């Protein structure tokens, strides 16, 4: 028996596993080839309360933990990383609201986010500011009883689909480092807010990555979450809870590739026996399975530490994302190798999984940034 997961978590995971296998897996290749955001999968998640999982019961959610949500992302990503990302981004975009929003704001938005009527996005990155928030140029200036936002955000997952975008903007350029930023929710349809373009990507091709332009967007003060100047702190707390989501996506992709490779190795006959009986293939499969399981266990441990309020949450979040991302890349690459020529063509899903895996080493901080976070945490605690 699995001692770490509760019976409830196992039942929820198994239900989403079945849903993913029967309803999402058959769509995965189409979603990748079409490169169009799969609204049908959004509806599927909404119908089965998958979005509701992470939100508090008083606002229409199910009160699930970080670990439970990661189990869902993992199971979905196992068959379709784009679909897994829908869950991860929905959680990411609403974290500022959950962490720093007031009751009125939660009542206003969480029910819609929980039932899938509202999608959200998280807009931190800019052309000149990724992991270094000091480069953020987007400005929010007081304008009567509200704010006026000007600037451009890049690489915003679901930015073109979101009804609600959490935007990190400079509110006080004079305030010290880490005190100059604030969060605002910009709503679809607000004047001056537009999608400038979508990127053409290597993987997660059904997940639109948008450049968002804010041209004098008037935002009421009621859309500001957290105190003025609290933006950086909220962003860091957000990443502590969102990086495990990326790790979960990575573990799912790795497991999905391993599933395909094992199946193939059982069936594909060369030199008179299934290739799974050849020792060189066996060694690859053994390593793939071991790495995937190690990544999974590190992820689950990290979720529990972070949920438990660990002081070094940032380090756990970075470690699980770092290890899982590298694992996904390695395992999917090996899966392509196990399948040989068939692994390289679209008839089998592992080439897609390999392309999808790469993003987990890049977004929400590159692997290099994760190492930086981990090392800093280690050295600062001395």
């Amino acid at each position, binding site marked *: 028996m699995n001692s770490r997961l509760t*019976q*409830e978590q196992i*039942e*929820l995971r198994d*239900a*989403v596993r*079945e*849903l993913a296998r029967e*309803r999402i897996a058959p769509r995965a290749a189409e979603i990748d080839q079409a490169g169009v955001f799969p609204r049908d999968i959004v509806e599927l998640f909404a*119908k*089965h*309360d*998958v979005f*509701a*999982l992470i939100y508090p019961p008083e606002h229409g959610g*199910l009160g*699930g933990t970080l670990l439970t949500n990661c189990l869902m992302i993992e199971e979905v990503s196992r068959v379709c990383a784009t679909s897994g990302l829908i869950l991860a981004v929905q959680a990411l975009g609403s974290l500022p609201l959950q962490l720093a929003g007031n009751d009125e704001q939660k009542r206003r938005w969480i029910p819609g986010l929980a039932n899938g009527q509202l999608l959200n996005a998280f807009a931190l990155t800019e052309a000149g500011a990724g992991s270094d928030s000091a480069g953020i140029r987007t400005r929010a200036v007081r304008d009567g009883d509200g704010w006026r936002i000007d600037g451009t955000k890049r690489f915003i997952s679901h930015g073109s689909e979101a009804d609600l975008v959490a935007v990190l903007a400079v509110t006080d350029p004079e305030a010290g480092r880490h005190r100059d930023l604030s969060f605002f929710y910009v709503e679809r349809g607000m004047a001056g807010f537009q999608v400038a373009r979508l990127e053409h990507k290597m993987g997660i091709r059904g997940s639109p990555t948008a450049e968002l332009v804010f041209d004098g967007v008037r935002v009421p003060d009621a859309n500001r979450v957290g105190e003025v100047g609290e933006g950086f702190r909220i962003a860091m707390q957000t990443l502590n809870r969102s990086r495990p989501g990326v790790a979960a996506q990575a573990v799912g992709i790795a497991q999905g590739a391993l599933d395909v490779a094992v199946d193939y190795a059982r069936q594909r006959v060369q030199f008179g026996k299934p290739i799974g009986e050849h020792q060189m293939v066996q060694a690859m499969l053994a390593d793939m399975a071991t790495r995937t399981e190690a990544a999974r266990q590190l992820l689950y441990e990290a979720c529990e530490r972070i949920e438990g309020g660990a002081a070094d949450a940032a380090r756990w979040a970075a470690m699980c994302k770092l290890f899982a991302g590298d694992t996904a890349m390695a395992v999917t690459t090996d899966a392509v190798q196990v399948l040989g020529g068939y692994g390289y063509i679209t008839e089998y899903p592992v080439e897609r999984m390999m392309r999808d895996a790469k993003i987990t080493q890049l977004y929400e901080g590159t692997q290099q940034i994760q190492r930086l976070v981990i090392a800093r945490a280690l050295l600062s605690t001395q």
Partner: protein
Amino acid sequence: MQIVVLLKAVPVVGNERLVDGWSVDRSSGLEANGNDEYVLEAALKLVEAHGGEVVTLTMGPASSVEAIRKALAMGAARAVQVVDDALAGSDALATGRVLAAALGRLEYDLAVAGADTSDGQGGVVGAAVATRLGLPYLSYAASIEPDPAAGVVRVRRISPTGYDVIEARMPAFIAGTQLLGEPRYPSLRGIMQARSKPIATWSLADLGIDPASVGSAASRTAVHEATPPPQRAGATIVRDAPDAAVERIVEFLASRRLI
């Protein structure tokens, strides 16, 4: 409208095996019988349309609980499980008696069950339960349309050439088929709510049934022998172009005197 769904937990299709005494291994890995999920779905739709609640009734060992929980997650309000060590190895006759005794203690307008089970394939228990309880029996249902105001229910019963529309007064017993419609997936909310829904467990003593009258010792039938069927030699693979492939098929069929 109150509906009782008779739900059997069966081994996952393809994983069935016999254990000592030639009875089906039900120690673990059970799931809801396929046809029972169709009638459960139909029952849930009926209470959504007419109000009321769905109660599941299962006779089966402790390992049935996962299948019961899934039914609760799909939307059943509560469950009754008849569980007693003495029931192991019960034949269709004893099963019909026990289910009739349990059903007799419940309130319902409709009692519904799958037309047969994947592990037993008898398809006789439903008719026996209905007969014992003096309930109208409407079988092989492709649709169920109750008229609560008139107190009657109409069923489309599959016939060899189409279907018969049959009608009876409620309470009635209906055995249903796959044509009732695809069962829903449980929602996550349903799964979480299911954990607090009640599962009443009834023993044979609760039902006033003598343990000696059920179980393998009282079974009117006995398996004397079980053997795997003769193995196939393994497929001959043909990868020729269509014309040549067809020639190969024709030769093969002729060699076995099938054409």
